[in-house]
């Protein structure tokens, strides 16, 4: 069983993003840092094991789990029924509001107004699935391999708008990029969950316990303050 393996091994292997600030990005020393990384550390800490961070992309994080390359996916993973068929989800550990972002000059206040526009999104992410549902048929959706691609495409003007998390856009804005992603409208409130392999009740229970405890003792809120600059929403 997975929990047994982890304790036996003494390390917790966690899939984390490195292209998705503020959840995961790199510092000048190329070391991963962000909300998800802190979360991974917190869980490993509570399990009493070392953490091994495995950088993944949105597109490949679920195969990582399916092929048992990692124990947990803490990679701003959103929940939907398709995914629930193949993996299990913990309780939510972070808030996430998907929205469509674009420079000031692009006018769009609701999905219908994306008609004819070119929108970049990361393939396989919740934004991709949601946007595909709500956008009009003549919206051109460009699906990039990873968030690096999506963000680069937006910043280099290859797409007019991107669909991503509000905090992601905020993190980009904070770095004063050449193109400023401003929120046009939200498409989904899709909190982040930790992904686990199916049928590992012991591990799931343990992780949920840790999340609940972290919510209760304020350590999760501290992470939120550090990376998102706000308190955790109460409904999480």
């Amino acid at each position, binding site marked *: 069983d997975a929990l047994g393996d982890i304790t036996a091994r003494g390390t917790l292997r966690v899939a984390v993003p490195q*292209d998705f600030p503020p959840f995961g990005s790199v510092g000048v*020393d190329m070391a991963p840092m962000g909300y998800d990384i802190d979360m991974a550390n917190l869980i490993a800490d509570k399990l009493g094991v070392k953490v091994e961070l495995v950088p*993944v*992309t949105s597109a490949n994080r679920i195969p990582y789990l399916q092929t048992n*390359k990692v124990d947990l996916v803490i990679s701003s993973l959103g929940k939907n029924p398709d995914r629930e068929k193949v993996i299990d989800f913990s309780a939510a550990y972070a808030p996430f509001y998907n929205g469509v972002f674009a420079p000031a000059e692009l006018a769009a206040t609701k999905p219908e107004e994306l008609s004819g526009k070119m929108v970049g999104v990361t393939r396989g992410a919740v934004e991709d699935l949601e946007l595909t549902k709500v956008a009009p048929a003549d919206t051109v959706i460009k699906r990039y391999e990873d968030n690096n691609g999506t*963000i680069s495409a937006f910043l280099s003007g290859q797409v007019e708008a991107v669909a991503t998390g509000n905090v992601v856009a905020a993190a980009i804005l904070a770095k004063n990029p*050449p193109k400023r992603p401003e929120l046009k409208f939200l498409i989904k409130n899709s909190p982040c969950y930790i992904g686990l392999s199916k049928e590992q009740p012991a591990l799931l229970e343990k992780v949920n316990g840790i999340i609940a405890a972290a919510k209760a003792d304020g350590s999760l809120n501290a992470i939120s303050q550090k990376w998102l600059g706000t308190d955790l929403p109460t409904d999480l």
Partner: protein
Amino acid sequence: MIEFTTWDILRNLLLATRWTILLSLVSFVGGGVVGLALLFLRISKRKSLRSLAKYYIELFQGTPLLMQLFIAFFGLGLFGIDVPAWLAAGLALILWAAAFLGEIWRGCVEAVAKGQWEASASLGMGRLQQMRYVILPQAMRIAVAPTVGFSVQVVKGTALTSIIGFVELSKAGTVVTNATFQPFTVYGLVALIYFALCWPLSKSSQVLERKLNVAHRNH
């Protein structure tokens, strides 16, 4: 927020280049070993072994390296084999390089005059002895230039491992681009580093080829 200086960019890219070099070496050496085995199969007396090698080569030369990487990475896991990115990358590159090296070397072995096989046979040597003492030493001379030439393809092939998440030079390039918003500079530098790795190899391959053609001496 942290600011990257150009030096930070370059330093991080160069650090990642270590992986590119290591991965290239592993693929090239591993590919060489497997390629040698393929070569022996390819020129074996048994038809079944020959076709086995032929289909292997056909398969690996006929499908994208990228797909081979994907399958090594995601596929092997399904068989319960735990493959970290570096292992999948190394494995796929080794198998891929072996297909090309095996084929290059077969050409070189076939370029050795038929009389050499006959003379060594009539001296009582077995097939392996013929290969070991007579054919390979001559084929190796012919093989040096194209083999060095192919090493350039290997170095460039390692760039694809970025797509299965292995952080070598190319992946570092995308990650740094996203932390700096300077794609032109970053990809320009990445290209220059690759050029600095590959160009000496291609140049020496050309020089070797010319040398061997001009001085057609055999020792």
